[in-house]
């Protein structure tokens, strides 16, 4: 099987360099682009399996790159951003990025994320498995049943819908907006704190230690992710 191809769009030479070295050491095929335009050309011609985009590009905005790629491809997109750009990060996720990493980031973290997204993509291709596992929790999508260590867990309809929304895009960061839309429908985006209440309930029911969750992770100020 051929090595997965990763496109990295980043204007900082040093960052591109260590990411390339680290990824090549992990047997990835790495393509570099130092600007948004260049990145779009590479993305369309070389057909990478995953794209890493820096949000602070000199020519195009990172968001614009994502929007254009999403116009024709579902390939996983991981965003890199500085800490003081929360809104941009959320906006990038809202228009279709799958994940984000805050600078400075560690390579093991990035590689883990990349692997997770590639895996998800593959599993998407052979979809249809109605049973989802995480930890000792089993969700039977066909029967709408949830068990933990073999014991039935009762979820309210909203809790179940929320869990389902996260399962559908497992591994991806789902923003508050996206979740509100999926669970409550439009017109609720102002009440994202509902989410926190229900996520708290879900964690109480499904996690060992709700304050230090293992699966239902919080991306503070951005959204949630199921791993």
């Amino acid at each position, binding site marked *: 099987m051929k090595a997965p191809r990763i496109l990295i769009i980043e204007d900082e030479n040093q960052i591109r360099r260590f990411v390339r070295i680290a990824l090549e050491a992990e047997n990835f095929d790495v393509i570099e682009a130092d600007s948004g335009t260049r990145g779009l050309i590479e993305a369309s011609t070389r057909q990478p399996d995953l794209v890493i985009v820096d949000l602070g590009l000199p020519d195009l905005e990172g968001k614009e790159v994502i929007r254009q790629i999403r116009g024709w491809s579902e390939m996983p997109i991981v965003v890199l951003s500085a*800490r*003081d750009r*929360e809104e941009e990060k959320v906006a990038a996720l809202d228009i279709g990025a799958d994940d984000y990493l805050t600078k*400075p980031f*560690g390579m093991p973290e990035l590689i883990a994320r990349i692997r997770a997204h590639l895996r998800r993509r593959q599993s998407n291709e052979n979809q249809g498995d109605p049973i989802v596992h995480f930890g000792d929790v089993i969700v039977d999508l066909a029967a709408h049943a949830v068990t933990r260590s073999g014991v039935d867990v009762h979820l*309210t309809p*909203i809790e179940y819908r929320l869990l389902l929304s996260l399962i559908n895009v497992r591994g991806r960061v789902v923003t508050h907006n996206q979740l509100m839309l999926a669970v409550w429908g439009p017109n609720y985006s102002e*009440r*994202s*704190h*509902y989410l*926190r*209440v229900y*996520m*708290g309930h879900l*964690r*109480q029911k499904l996690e060992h*230690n*709700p*304050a*230090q*969750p293992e699966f239902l*992770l*919080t*991306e*503070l*100020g951005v959204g949630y992710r199921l791993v």
Partner: protein
Amino acid sequence: MNEERPDPDRLLAEIKREEIAAQRGKLKIFIGACAGVGKTYAMLNAAQQRIAEGIDVVIGVVETHGRSETIKLLEKFPEVLPLRKINYRGKSLAELDIDTALQRAPQLIIVDELAHTNIEGSRHVKRWQDVDELLVNGINVYTTLNVQHLESLNDVVGGITGIRIWETIPDRFFDSADEVTLVDLPPDELLERLKEGKVYIPEQVEHAAKNFFRKGNLIALRELALRRTADRVDLQMRAYRADHAIANVWQARERIIACIGPGSIGDKLVRSAARLANELKADWLAVYVETPALQRLSKTDRQRILDHLKLAEELGAETATLAGSDLIATLIAYSKSRNANKLVVGHPTDLPWYQQWHPRFIDTLARFSPDIDIYVVGNDKPSQIRSRVINMGTMKWWNYAWATAACGVTTILAAGLLRIFDLSNVVMLLLLTVVGVSIRFGRGAGAWAAALSVLLFDFFFVPPRFSFVVSDVQYFFTFTLMLLIALIIGQLAAKLQFEATTANIRERRAQALAALSKELSGALTVEQVVEIANRHVSGTFNSSVAVFLPSSQEKIKVAGTSSSQPIVDTAVAQWVYDHQLPAGFGTQTLSAAVSHYLPLQAPMRTRGVLVLEAKNLLFLDEPEEKRLLDTFAAQIALALERVHYVEVAQDALVLMEGERLRNSLLSAISHDLRTPLTALVGLASTLTDSNLPENSQKELAIAIQNEAQQMSDLVTNLLDMARLQTGGVKLKKDWQSIEEIVGSACMQLHRVLATHKLVISIPPNLPLCECDPILIQRVIVNLLSNAAKFTSAGSIITISAAAENNEMAIVIEDNGPGLPRGQETRLFDKFTRGETESNKPGVGLGLALCKAIIEAHDGKIFAENCIDSGARFTIKLPLGIAPMPEELL
């Protein structure tokens, strides 16, 4: 020796004068003896020469009076400004358009007829004020003037020609001209021109003009013009001598006081005093002493005195109204207090008998003040008897009616008591009535009551009763005594009453001023000053008030008004602010405005504008009241300036504090950034050595990673702090779960905390808390990494949260060595660390940042030591009630 060297103060004043003069435009006046000598023609010729020299000249306004020579000359000018059309009583009249002129800003503008009075509705009452504004804006002006229009010569010319002219300009304006050119024409030639019809005479004054243009008049006028111009040359000569230290005699500055009385002579007196002051280059004052006698003057007489004071003010005098019972004593005391050595008084020829009876005013004055020169201005007018007669007519008749009624009642009362009382006691009762009437209704009514009492006494009480016939001659003596005593007592009572009234008024003024000053001295902000100013000014002057303050662009804006708002024109206020002159009602500028505008002038600069609505502003005519208002304005301006400088001082303090912070930041950073950087450089350079065994390489790499991570934390803290301090951070508050925030903080620190035991105890039903999650996470991350940094591996770190008393309390404690004693609060200051010398990295910024963030949330953060051991940090955030979905309620 000293005289050779100019006095430094004077030099300084000279420099200041030159500075002002340099910015100010130059004024050239073409003066002539009368109309028709060719001033306008001469002025236009001179302007033509300027054009030839390449100077930008425009015509502001020129009256050609249809003279062909002038019109022809006027056509040669490249630019004539359009006039401003003003509708006045149905007629469209044209005036100089000062705004266009200011906008056009030529180098030189021609403005004919300086003494012209503008039509109502123009900006200034007089054209010379327009010219003044042009000069202030640095525009040079050529203008013309007839000698009779000079204020101080006005009455002299009137006396010569028998025609009084009302259009005048103040002498100081004439004297301030940079150049004066005399346009002279011998009387014979002028008469020749007149015959040829070359002189313009308005139809309505044709008859008067015939008398005016008599040869004798023309000679006299010519002499006046020549002399006035010569005076000016003399003045310049003296100024030149002074400038070049030629003067070898130091002259004491003279001060002249003109004493204005009720007679119509005041007008002449004021002009004489002005001329005298001008000749002596002296300061001069015009004073009016209000004695009990003068207090009772009719309204018209009072108005005339005020007019005279106003005239004096226009002629450059300082004015004052003094109150006192003794005219001479008050006058002398005032002269001494003001160090005046010359008094100008009118000749008291009002009434021949008055002089006979009264100790001669001038003689007394001279006797009491031998060191003061007294100038007496003669009275060439007919005596004032007529005006006195009119005064009698304007007396308040009801005072006399009351006096009559009081005497009547007393008579009836006395008649009833006659059975018990003696006749002599009846006299006493009547005397008592006279005293009462004098106090209540004044001297006139008192005298009337005195006379009436005598008659009533005679008619009703002296036998034979009910007839004026007197049986005993003794009673005539009683009548005379009674009348005299009644008059004297009445006089004294009235005087007492007057003094009490004036004292009251003075007391009221002094109290009002004291109250204002007291409150202003306590004011700390501009808003307070404005509020106090509005309250006091509106209270004292019984008028609607507004205070305008300038913005940073020098644009005037309303800062506050009294409870009722005055009608205000912001453009006028702006003008007043820009020119530092009063305007509006009661002044010479924009007098048609409904409000009075006063600049708030402080020593350093104008601080704003005070506006009073004119409804109750008649008092502006009274110098004392006006001065009180001026004092109020000065006090307010001073307070504004004081507050301004307090703010400046505070800013300077803040700046100094900032400077101190920056210094300590720099020294802290140089340590805390350089240490990890040194380590990084060292570690990385060691790593490049390829001979190292693989596990050493890995060890080095991990060390580099740790150092870099620490620097990253430090930089994050620094940036957050900087952003919070510059106010660049807007809290993104939302209803947040503390559990999630703590969870993600622990996740972020999982590597650092790996060596410690972490206990989290958060109740599952903890309410949401409104906060900025990223910032609160920052606080918890800082506290947790501190706990990890300052305790040994294996220590326990506990995080707990609870909602109590409307507060969300988050507690982070450890079982380490605890905090240094007595340092618990100082820890949160910037660049403070528990131990001053420590190998533990961090600029001591972490806790300061925590405090800043928590305080931005209106919360509290504090540190303490646990009872057994370890440190405890507590965060308290205000807790509201989050709106919840219905199914959960």
